[in-house]
């Protein structure tokens, strides 16, 4: 009976969602502000990748808020899981020596890949969020592969704070030079080069470090509650 009611309700919602989106044509251009972004991204911001220039430059203030939300989520997760103890580890779960050596050997390469992705964020697909996530995945591999590995939380929080300060200072410099918050003050350079697009690479590198540190901290907090240490 309950299932029938739920199915009926979902059918109702689905029908109205469908009728709402049936009026939106698929595959046709309905850009309004996007057209302007696409046309002005190379002359105004110097970035080749339009998505990056929207995320960092046109809507940089949104990104600052979003990074703050991530920070709050990481802090709240630490507060929720504070003081939990896990069950003691059984011997079967210990990583083998091949895994330990492999994790140690692969970690620099993964960090290199993440750094490549967020340094080239204004040229190729990718950017701070993706690169930071890849670095966090590398830290996860260390946690899984090395026995009794603990991420250094003090170092992580220092890294994260420095990255956040870099973001805010890059915004305030715009104000200091008589422009608006987060406006570009550096020379634009040649589009397509690594050192171009003004302030965008600096902010995206900061975002990459911040996201990487936050997600690594989240993973280490969650793992240490299940590993039965502390």
């Amino acid at each position: 009976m309950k299932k029938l009611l739920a199915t009926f309700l979902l059918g109702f919602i689905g029908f109205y969602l469908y009728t709402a989106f049936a009026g939106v044509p698929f595959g046709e251009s309905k850009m309004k502000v996007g057209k302007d972004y696409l046309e002005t991204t190379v002359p105004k911001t110097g970035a080749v990748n339009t998505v990056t220039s929207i995320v960092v430059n046109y809507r940089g203030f949104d990104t600052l808020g979003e990074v703050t939300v991530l920070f709050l989520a990481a802090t709240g997760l630490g507060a929720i899981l504070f003081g939990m103890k896990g069950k003691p580890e059984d011997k079967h779960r210990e990583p083998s020596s091949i895994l330990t050596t492999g994790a140690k050997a692969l970690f620099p390469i993964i960090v290199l890949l993440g750094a490549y992705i967020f340094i080239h964020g204004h040229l190729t697909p990718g950017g701070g969020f993706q690169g930071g996530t890849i670095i966090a995945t590398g830290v996860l591999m260390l946690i899984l592969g090395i026995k009794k590995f603990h991420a250094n939380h003090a170092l992580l929080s220092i890294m994260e704070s420095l990255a956040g300060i870099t973001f805010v200072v890059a915004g305030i410099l715009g104000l200091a030079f008589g422009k608006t918050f987060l406006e570009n003050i550096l020379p634009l350079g040649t589009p397509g080069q690594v050192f171009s697009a003004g302030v965008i690479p600096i902010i995206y590198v900061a975002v990459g470090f911040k996201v990487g540190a936050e997600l690594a901290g989240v993973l280490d907090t969650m793992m240490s509650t299940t590993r039965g240490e502390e």
Partner: protein
Amino acid sequence: MNIMTIIGMALTTQGALFLLLGAIGIVRMPDMYTRMQAGTKATTLGAMSFILGIGFMEPAWLLKTILIVVFIALSNPISSHALARAAHRSGIFPLSRENIDLYKRDNQEDKS
């Protein structure tokens, strides 16, 4: 069509062939460990030669593709080792007529 393109085409063909063999092996093999040996060894070689072949076809990308090949050569055996070990630890044993399980024999003391 210069010599680099021909080498690249040969390498990509070989890679596609090995990937196909790996896929057939996953379907045809009887138990988990033999499936894994088809699904990791053959596809490691297949992916490596495929990516290297693309690097030969487009010489500007050759350095990056060599880096990717080195990364695959490092990471793929480690991950398949971890998978096989986890499967053995969680109680899936090889399906063989002679009952050969060398890993179990060598690690007798920590299988309590």
